[in-house]
């Protein structure tokens, strides 16, 4: 792939990209250990768990999918929740298109590797198209490899236990979602963070109120209405009336 070339000119930057990509890969691989364990504790087999990491390859959607299944929400709600969480990858791909300019035959694997981490790295190394491409593919591949190794170790480890609940794995699930949510609440400007917190608290509150009335999984889907309402409200107030 493209990043093998051009070593002489920008060796220092390339090394920095590769080191960061490797570090991010190892960190998410460690996180995949818990995904593998939680997935098996939620009732999926080792092979089913691995398929999610190989083919879905987007952490939040994978966690949500097994979380809904484990809570008894059923397959349909699990699929819809995973798709709603994955919608942000469309946005990443849209904004990456002009940066990476993948050739037609590169699009299938470029798409698979389009995740939070590879997108962030592509935009972080934006000095040249080559640097962006290298950052994107090095990070994407590194995370893909370590994410799948971590998943396998976690699921095999958990399937060796007789009762994963004893290890507090049911508490690991909300902690995992919180760890995924946290950067979105703290990374922006203070006014942006305040908006994110408002949406998060309103969504959590709505979902909790709905627990007794709806079957498992549905309260989470209904909470998406908060995001829809907030985005309509805030995009209307942030520009003049009469636009399309």
């Amino acid at each position: 792939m493209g990043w093998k070339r051009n070593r002489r000119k920008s060796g220092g930057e390339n090394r920095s990209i590769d080191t960061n990509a490797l570090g991010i890969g190892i960190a998410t691989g460690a996180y995949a250990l818990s995904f593998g364990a939680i997935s098996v504790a939620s009732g999926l087999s080792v092979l089913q768990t691995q398929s999610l990491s190989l083919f879905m390859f987007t952490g939040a959607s994978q966690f949500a999918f097994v979380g809904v299944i484990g809570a008894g929400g059923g397959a349909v709600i699990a699929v819809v929740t995973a798709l709603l969480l994955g919608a942000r990858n469309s946005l990443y791909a849209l904004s990456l298109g002009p940066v990476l300019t993948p050739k037609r035959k590169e699009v299938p694997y470029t798409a698979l590797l389009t995740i939070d981490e590879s997108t962030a790295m592509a935009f972080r190394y934006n000095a040249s198209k080559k640097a962006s491409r290298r950052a994107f593919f090095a990070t994407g591949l590194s995370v893909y490899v370590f994410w799948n190794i971590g998943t396998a170790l976690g699921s095999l480890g958990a399937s060796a236990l007789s009762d994963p609940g004893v290890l507090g794995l049911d508490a690991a699930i909300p902690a995992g979602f919180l760890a995924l949510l946290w950067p979105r609440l703290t990374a922006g400007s203070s006014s942006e963070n305040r908006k994110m917190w408002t949406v998060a608290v309103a969504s959590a509150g709505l979902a909790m109120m709905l627990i007794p009335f709806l079957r498992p999984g549905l309260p989470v889907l209904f909470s998406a209405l908060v995001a829809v309402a907030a985005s309509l409200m805030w995009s209307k107030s942030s520009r003049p009336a009469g636009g399309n």
Partner: protein
Amino acid sequence: MWASILIASFGTYVEKLLGYLLPQGILERESVRRMTGLLPVSLLAALVAVQTFASDQAFLIDARILGLGVAVVALLLRAPFLVVIIAAAASTALIRWLGWMP
């Protein structure tokens, strides 16, 4: 189970693919950009709440809330992901083993 895994995997892949195939103009719509940014916040926050307090269709406070509290502290201390999760699970397991919370 296999059918839903394949459908969900295919669907999330198509979402990624669509971004490279759709015209760029969609990005200019502020509401679209906002919504895709806010959806994960809504869904993840709701998942945190439900996975902490729901037991089937009942509202239940048990040792999971302690695990979540420990996770918040770990995140405030900028602990790495895996430490956050292990701390949450270990504290929950410990308090159950001690018999202080169900």
